[in-house]
């Protein structure tokens, strides 16, 4: 079904100079995406603790994927391909922060960071005040979240 559409799809303007320019732009975008991925890998190696590494990880996940998707659309020159690739971007935009949040939260709780690199930690006192590992109403822990919410509401 996809193949049928691709065959039937209207292509962009396909004159010779335009094609060259579009190909060149696509090439630059691919190189940028590859550079971002490499930078993320280097950051993952060189940054000091898990939380800092998490920041390095988010770049290719969002901007890199967006750049590559645009590059594909430019090189194939078809709107339908762009539509087919939109779910890729949407899924990345929705899932990358969630997994980063969950991993970061787990990393913080497991003590997987270097306190010396933190200038300020405004979370620690609040965690201590809450007395448990769970903040009031916070996070994904349904049971404790429910209990806390009911306390807060009444």
């Amino acid at each position, binding site marked *: 079904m996809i193949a049928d559409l691709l065959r039937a799809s209207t292509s962009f303007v396909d004159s010779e100079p335009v094609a060259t320019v579009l190909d060149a732009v696509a090439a630059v975008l691919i190189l940028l995406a590859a550079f971002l991925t490499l930078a993320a890998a280097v950051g993952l190696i060189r940054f000091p603790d898990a939380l800092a590494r998490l920041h390095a990880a988010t770049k290719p996940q969002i901007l890199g994927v967006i750049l590559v998707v645009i590059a594909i659309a430019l090189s194939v020159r078809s709107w339908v391909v762009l539509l*087919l690739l939109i779910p890729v971007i949407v899924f990345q935009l929705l899932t990358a*922060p969630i997994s980063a949040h969950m991993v*970061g939260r787990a990393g913080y709780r497991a003590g997987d960071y270097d306190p010396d690199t933190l200038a300020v930690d405004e979370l620690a006192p*609040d965690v201590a005040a809450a007395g448990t590992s769970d903040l009031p109403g916070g996070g994904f822990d349904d049971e404790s979240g*429910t209990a806390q919410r009911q306390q807060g509401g009444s």
Partner: protein
Amino acid sequence: MTDNSVAVVSEPSRRASFLEQLPLLVALVVLWMLLWGSLTPLTIVTGIVVALGVTRAFYLPPVELSGRFNPFWFAVFLGRFLGELAIASFQVALQAFAAAPVPRSAILRVDLRTRSDFIMTGVSLAVSLVPGSLVIELDRTNARLYVHQLNARTPDEIEKARAHVLSLEHDLLRAWGSRDEWQAVRS
């Protein structure tokens, strides 16, 4: 199903009405058609069937939309977000190659002014997507985010990071917040 009532703070034990679920259903059908890459009666019908099945089988608490949406300001928000995404991506990328890549970071608490889960989710997504900042913990009852911010050493920089999160909230409220919340933030 009683557990689900927790999610709606204002009106407990209420199932989402069909109207409330409509945006979700439409989004699911559109996603289904994008995945198939075609707009035919068959994909529309199967999309509606699948969307209804999914929303019945994996029932989620209703998302309360604010009932106000300004496309222009949303486009402004989106443009600003994409710009920041690009700039911050390359900043963090260059930092990875820098001579001494030991970023000093901070975990800061940001008290949002909104009470809407929807806006809070949007702000958290935007904050987490832009490299250099990341929501590591959030407190839904008090609409409070705990943001891990890369490269925040001095009190100045920390306040700047805090103000940045709040300005994202401001922009999102301008586009999508309920009338009351936008009026409250507007000043």
